[in-house]
């Protein structure tokens, strides 16, 4: 309201300046000694603050690596990509894509030659979408001189895993710690349980598969 009034007054002043200013200066040329007070003091042009133009860094993207323990099939390395969007300081949504490899089941190892799966079926890939909650944000201290910014967070979500050649519905739940090394750089340690149903070894059963990973991410 105030600014509208100001603008209106400015506009009137501008019109007065255009209408009144030109004849005054023409007239003033005849009598150079006569000092005319300017009607309007022109202010330097003001830069309007546009909040949209402030650099916003709500996205986080990065890579991770670690180990994944796949029920019945042993442990192997896991690598992947993660991307997150921070909605508020408390909540974020995250998508991950990872891959690992199925090892030998105890049966395969004991039986000697028998193989349950082909090599291609031993490739495990997964993706999931999760909601994250920064449950314990704050500074952590090592000794009395070093303080680290970060947050302990909880993850829960759903996705799909290509396991033994088939896609299975996968629920995940996890906990992680994000250490903010720089404003734009973070390190994570994440433990996640990937839960799916499988009938690959006969009876359909719920399988818990734990991954333990470290990530390096950047904010942009």
């Amino acid at each position, binding site marked *: 309201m*105030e*600014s509208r009034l100001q603008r209106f007054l400015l506009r009137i002043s501008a019109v007065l300046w255009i209408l009144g200013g030109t004849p005054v200066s023409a007239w003033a040329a005849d009598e150079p000694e006569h000092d005319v007070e300017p009607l309007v003091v022109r202010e330097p042009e*003001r*830069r*309007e*603050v*546009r*909040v*949209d*133009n*402030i*650099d*916003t*860094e*709500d996205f986080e993207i990065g890579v991770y690596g670690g180990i994944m323990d796949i029920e019945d099939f042993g442990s192997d390395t896991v690598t992947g990509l993660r991307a997150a*969007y*921070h*909605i*508020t*300081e408390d*909540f974020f*949504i995250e*998508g991950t894509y990872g891959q690992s490899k199925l090892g030998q089941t105890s049966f395969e190892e004991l039986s000697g030659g028998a193989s349950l799966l082909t090599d291609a*079926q031993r490739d495990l890939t997964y993706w999931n*979408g999760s*909601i994250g909650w*920064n449950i*314990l*944000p*704050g*500074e952590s201290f090592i000794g009395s001189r070093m*303080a680290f*910014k970060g*947050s302990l967070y909880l993850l829960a979500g*759903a*996705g*799909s895993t290509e396991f*033994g*050649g*088939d*896609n*299975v*519905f996968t629920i995940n739940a996890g906990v992680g710690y994000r250490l*903010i090394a720089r*404003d734009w750089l973070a390190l994570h340690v994440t433990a996640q349980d990937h839960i799916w149903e499988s*009938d*690959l070894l006969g009876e*359909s059963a719920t399988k818990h598969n734990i991954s333990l990973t470290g990530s390096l991410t950047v*904010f942009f």
Partner: protein
Amino acid sequence: MSLGAAGVRHRLVALILFALLGSAPIANAGWFSSEQPDVYVVDPYLDIHTGPGRGFPKFYVAEKGETVTVLKRRTDWFKVRTERGKEGWVPLSQISNTRDEGGELIDWGLIGRDGFVQRRTEFGFAGGDFDGARTLSAWGGYALTPNIMLQVEASKILGDFSDGEMALASIVLTPFPEWWVSPYFALGTGILHIDPHTTVVQAEDRTDEVAHAALGANVWLSKRFVMRMEYRRHTVLTSRNDNQEIDQWKAGFSVFF
């Protein structure tokens, strides 16, 4: 000396090039270069935290009348640099009381339900049930008006005996966008690919066209966050004699911009 046709053309090309090159940086200023505006503190003080969150301690206070430079933003926290060179984070609730060079309040673009009504794009993720199988979907939408949105969606279907993918395009009509629980209906079409599991004997992959009608509701939760629930009826246009009708339920979340 008179200009020939070629001369005129050259001048014209030069003029157009000049106009394009000259105006491009201005047109793109908002996209590629970010601003770092100076704002004045008018409250008695401005608390500055070490990090972008309430869990990070205040370590400095900018005083009334001081200018701070806003460097960047993360969620609802703003990184500022004071006149004395201290850098830290200030919450939206405090920085929204600062003034611009002319002493006027700044529009910090608080996002409320109105922001959802006026949204241009929306991205979401949902889980659901597709005739007994689980589905996971990701979608993106572009709003033509507050009432009409064009939407594309990719779904993964995970059943006990088969899995599949579905890609859909639809038009979403929202008659009352300003309601807190805002119902909508949608019509769309796409393709459905079903791939039986390896443990199932003698089953073939198949790809069919699908058409659907849907009824759902958006619930604005906070800021850029929306919850969405939907019921859909798909008609699978199979190559067999009968078309197949499939019910789908889903619920999910989306963010809008």
